[in-house]
């Protein structure tokens, strides 16, 4: 008696991991995702404002790059976001989830602001900026070093640790904004040294943001070289891919973790310095303004490539400025830009799947025979 043939149940489709696909294909998938995000963002705007989709995009483009001043503001926005994104990248590449960039940048900014308040009449302007630079870098680095030590020594969960450090930094800044508030008790420091401009970055070519942008461009190139072409960069990549491999080939994992986090925090400190000395000339709890979190998405979406990060930050800042233009034109709340940012990121995150995996549909019975 022969057994009846067992009919295996095969699902309609299944997911398999792809080998690496050519760059042009992955770029095409990403471009498709951005296009889809644009359509959805346009539709959402249409339903909320009744503006026809063509006008939506033209208002956005005008709001982002309509005038020369807007272009500089756009570049400045990109520079600040890119700076924080660069800062978190070495840690991410090591698979150390530093989501404390917000706090690290805030501490760097706080250090710069305190120098501006306390030392402006004691030091010459050039020396003051030098001291601000050093203190910002050190305080950002210290804020990152604390969780790194615990991660290296006791494997304390760094995601949750760095997250909590953000709020401690925010409270410390809030405490100092009461201590030095003008007028007393108002809780905000106001523009520091608005007359003497001590500790402010000087304007170059009549552009107050030129120096910020220049610094970030230099940092981008340096970090690209550091990650791609230095021994440290290689060690970071190995630790990120497999800690066991790293141990096996004789890399001191703890040392790499601590060294990389110091670098990450120091870069965050520089970002804080740019925000305080180069942009706001004051410090408040929202000086960093969520860039610490957005930067994580920028860095991840760009696959830790500093040059790609420029494009991602451009995309996000462009739409932020565009959405703000729409919301102010229609007297809507500014948080509209957060919704648009969210939609764009959802689509790009989702598109990663189609780069890394492919879907195989069930083949027809006859075909297989």
């Amino acid at each position, binding site marked *: 008696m022969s057994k009846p043939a067992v009919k295996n149940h095969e699902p309609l489709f299944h997911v398999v991991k792809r080998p690496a696909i050519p760059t042009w294909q992955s770029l095409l998938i990403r471009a498709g995702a951005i296009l889809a995000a644009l359509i959805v963002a346009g539709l959402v705007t249409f339903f909320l404002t009744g503006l026809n989709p063509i006008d939506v995009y033209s208002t956005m483009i005008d709001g982002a790059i309509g005038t020369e001043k807007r272009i500089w503001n756009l570049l400045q926005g990109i520079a600040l976001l890119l700076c924080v994104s660069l800062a978190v990248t070495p840690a991410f590449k090591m698979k150390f989830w530093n989501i404390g960039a917000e706090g690290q940048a805030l501490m760097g900014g706080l250090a710069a602001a305190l120098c501006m308040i306390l030392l402006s009449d004691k030091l010459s302007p050039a020396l003051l900026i030098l001291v601000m630079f050093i203190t910002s870098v050190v305080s950002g680095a210290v804020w990152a070093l604390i969780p790194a030590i615990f991660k290296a020594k006791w494997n304390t969960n760094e995601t949750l640790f760095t997250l909590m450090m953000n709020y401690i930094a925010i409270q410390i800044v809030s405490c*100092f904004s009461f201590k030095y508030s003008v007028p007393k008790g108002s809780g905000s420091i106001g523009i520091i040294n608005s007359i003497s401009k001590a500790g402010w970055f000087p304007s170059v070519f009549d552009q107050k943001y030129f120096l910020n942008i220049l610094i970030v461009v230099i940092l981008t190139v340096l970090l690209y070289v550091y990650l791609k072409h230095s021994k440290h960069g290689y060690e970071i990549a190995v630790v990120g891919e497999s800690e066991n491999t790293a141990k096996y080939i004789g890399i001191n994992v703890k040392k790499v973790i601590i060294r990389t986090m110091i670098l990450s925090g120091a870069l965050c400190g520089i970002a804080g310095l740019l925000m305080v000395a180069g942009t706001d000339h004051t410090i408040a709890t929202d000086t960093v303004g969520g860039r610490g979190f957005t930067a994580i998405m920028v860095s991840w979406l760009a696959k830790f490539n500093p040059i790609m990060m420029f494009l991602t930050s451009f995309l996000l800042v462009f739409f932020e400025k565009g959405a703000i233009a729409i919301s102010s034109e229609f007297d*809507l709340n500014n948080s509209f830009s957060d919704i648009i940012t969210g939609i764009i990121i959802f689509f790009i995150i989702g598109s990663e799947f189609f780069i890394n995996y492919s879907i195989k549909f069930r083949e027809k019975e006859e075909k297989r025979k």
Partner: protein
Amino acid sequence: MIVSFIQRAVMQGIPLLYGSTGEIITEKGGHLNLGIPGIMYVGAISGVIGAFFYEQSVETVNPILAVMIPLLSSVLGSFIMGLIYCVLTVTLHSNQNVTGLAMTTFGVGFGNFFGGSLIKLTNSDTPSIALVETSRCFKTALPFADKLGAIGELFFSYSFLAYSAIIIAILVTLFFNKTRAGLHLRAIGENPATADAAGINVNRYKYVSTCIGSIIAGLGGLYYVMDYADGIWSNNGFGDRGWLAIALVIFAVWRPNFSIIGSILFGGLLIAYNYIPNLSFEQVELIKMTPYVVTILVLIIISMRQKKENQPPASLGLSYFREER
């Protein structure tokens, strides 16, 4: 004064309790949902939108409908958020931290946008979103509460959403420890490959646990706006409570029954500065820091002691793909 302090601490703690219970369910399935702050905003604003339309459309509010409509719209809003998170992280294997942070950006923006623009969008003639009637229905306390003096104030003076928060936390504890489904969920959080080999449908569990977690967290937002804030929406009024809820998860070492106590403690820390005389503004800000410092200390201590039952779920934050070993 002690009585009113504890009462206010409980009221501050309830949104945190909802948020942390929701996050614990999600984390036990191995997903670190950093979108909880955004989901709580969406839960709150969805309830507000539902109540707003209801109050605008009728002359006199029916108490049962006034509670059910915001409740259902809040549940729907946070369910959709949970679903977006699941599609991206479970089905599409995206990075959980990045997806969660995007959810928070989106959710907080969604809340503030509709909170700030709802009146403009609907061309309504009310000056601000003040859902006093709805809030009154939500706040209905037990009738005998004020007859029992201090005991009544302490135990019976809260609204039904506050009691449900505690009941949900207890039920979730029982679910983890006493049911087979709870055991399966914990197994998935520890090692999804093993759970899969044992015949557990990993993705289905992850979807269900994350969506239910989102709904519970969203209720925390609803409680805040309808009960604590008297139905008055103010942008960013909810503040950092979502992150505090995630902190509470660690403080309670992933146990909802601990987070009942923890939430009241955190709630007390949030308002303690009102009850300490002669504080300067600087000191107030430093006192507000304590919940986060305490959380970090707990995190450090559990990582140093290495007790197995107090660790985060082992596969927390990692996505699971069957063919990848």
